[in-house]
């Protein structure tokens, strides 16, 4: 069963007087429980594709269906609801809320979902334990290393059990050891909770971890390889 169905997606950005076509008629589907890497050089369109799949950006043409929800039929508010309940995001620059502690950053998504305080608290602690931050609950982002911040970001992305986690260059700012640890955590989540992970990356290690590798070049799918388990 596919969790993402992208059909004939095109997207053009205007850079001054020049129109840059970031995606050219891209169609792909991603199966539920997948561990997928969108790989390609900078400017290939992988982040744009990831943003469109997550409903952060809209395509010029084509359609996206995520977990049975067709984006073109949804309002902004409905898209926000869909992101809140079904999509988790991990960003290259971590993007944690600087005035909230690690625990509060993770809790915040559940607060938006209306999860009761006690449950929120318990789940946030449990997920931080899972990513190895059991002694860092009350640290603010600036008091955490880059790897720890990214682990908080992963915890935030998966705490509300989304259908899919979209991770944009999650290891780009991390050293290889920290990056590997983070990938292990995500792989474990993928196994244990059947959460679909889609990465945009040009990190060799992420490509190696992925079970399916989709290469993007000049806004088009250049190669799509599923590895044997």
């Amino acid at each position, binding site marked *: 069963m596919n969790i993402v169905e992208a059909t004939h997606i095109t997207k053009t950005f205007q850079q001054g007087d020049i129109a840059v076509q970031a995606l050219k008629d891209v169609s792909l589907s991603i199966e539920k429980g997948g561990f997928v890497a969108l790989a390609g050089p900078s400017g290939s369109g992988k982040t744009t594709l990831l*943003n469109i799949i*997550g409903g*952060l*950006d809209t395509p010029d043409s084509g359609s996206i269906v995520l977990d049975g929800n067709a984006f073109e039929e949804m309002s*902004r*508010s409905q898209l*926000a*609801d*869909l*992101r*809140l*309940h079904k*999509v988790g*995001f991990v*960003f290259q620059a971590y*993007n944690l*809320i*600087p*005035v*909230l502690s690690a625990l*509060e950053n993770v*809790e*915040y*998504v559940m*607060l*938006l*979902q209306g999860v009761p305080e006690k449950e929120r608290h318990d789940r946030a602690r449990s997920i931080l334990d899972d990513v190895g931050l059991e002694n860092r609950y009350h640290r603010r982002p600036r008091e955490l290393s880059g790897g720890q911040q990214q682990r908080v970001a992963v915890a*935030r992305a998966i705490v509300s059990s989304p259908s899919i986690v979209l991770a944009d260059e999650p290891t780009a700012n991390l050293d290889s050891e920290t990056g590997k640890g983070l990938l292990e955590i995500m792989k474990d989540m993928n196994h244990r909770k059947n959460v679909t992970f889609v990465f945009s990356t040009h990190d060799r290690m992420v490509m190696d971890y992925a079970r399916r590798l989709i290469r993007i070049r000049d806004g088009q799918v250049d190669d799509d390889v599923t590895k044997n388990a």
Partner: protein
Amino acid sequence: MHCQLAWRNIWRNPRRTAVILTAIIIGVWTMLMVTALMRGVSNGMVKNAVSTLTGEIQIHAQGYRSDPVIEHSMTDIQTVENTLTDVLPEKAVYAFRIRVNAIASNARHSGGLTLVGIVPDTESQVSFIGPEAMRAGRYLDETDKNGILIGEATANKFDTEVGKKLVLMSQDTADEMASRAFRITGIYTAEMSSTEKQFAFVHMDTARDMLKLPDGISEVCILLPDGENLDRTASELRASLGEGFAVHTWREILSAITAYLELFDGFMMLWYVVTFIAMGFGIINTTLMSVFERMREFGVLKALGMKPWWIVRGVLTESVFLLLLGSAAGDLLSIVTVGVLAATGIDLSSLAAGAEFAGLSRIIYPSLTVTDVGMANLVVCLLGVVVCVYPAVKAARFTPVEAMAHT
């Protein structure tokens, strides 16, 4: 956690928060100080006017106010006295007076003034004239049948002093010219020199004798205890006295002051809004800066599923915290300042002539009411939130990708 987040956000940049808080504090302080001064001025005007023989309620014979001559006197004093006893609350005080226009003269000068016949003991309870008002000589007593009290300005004008003679002429009840020589018993001072020039006081019995008005009086002046309902008491007196008598409150007698007081609240509101407009630019600018600085963060929050309205709510919550904090500090500063100034008063003696022309007291005691403070805070907080809607909506309108691209 929304409030916690908003509270922490406003302290992310303590210097900026301190600047905007200072602007709000100064704004609120300015609003309240000007209000307190103006209210002090108006209180002084009312107090002066009430104590300068007006009292809070006056009773006259019908027709006296339009033609204040001796013929329009009240002769049925018993009815008046019985009514006052029945209607007035226990701690109310009142005084009977005879009041006519007269001409005063001595060897050096002559001029018009108002001759007021008083009962010394009761008069000092309802108006400024009493032992404390005496600059020279002494206040009238029951034995002073030929004594007269004149104001300092009159004494200067007539170049006279205590112990000297002053002759007064007026029309009596028989339409004849009545005149009598008085010995100056005391020279009084009043808040305004116009009062000193206008009034000369003699004993009630002396005035009656001079004007051939054995039982009559011109007016009754009443002071009510604090908190008593002025209009209700006046209505009860009107109903009880019936035709032939006219009952007026000080608001009806002093129509110019009443009109000023009615305009006062409108002026205050206008002043609040004008001050806020100056302050509002600072608030909107600072909030915009704060919003643009965190645009990337708003993008992340939207990506996580935060709805635009929730971002508006978050920014407005921060604004409300700043406005409440600034208003509270501004209130505190204003209350302390007004408290200090109210204890000593602001002496306008050097401007006395101009101040008197405007009907002001020589010393102004700034005063604030709960309503003044409430209105100033309401204007600041309400309009503050309104101007912050713009930056808040701006923050909410960007798409997550646009916002996250913000550096």
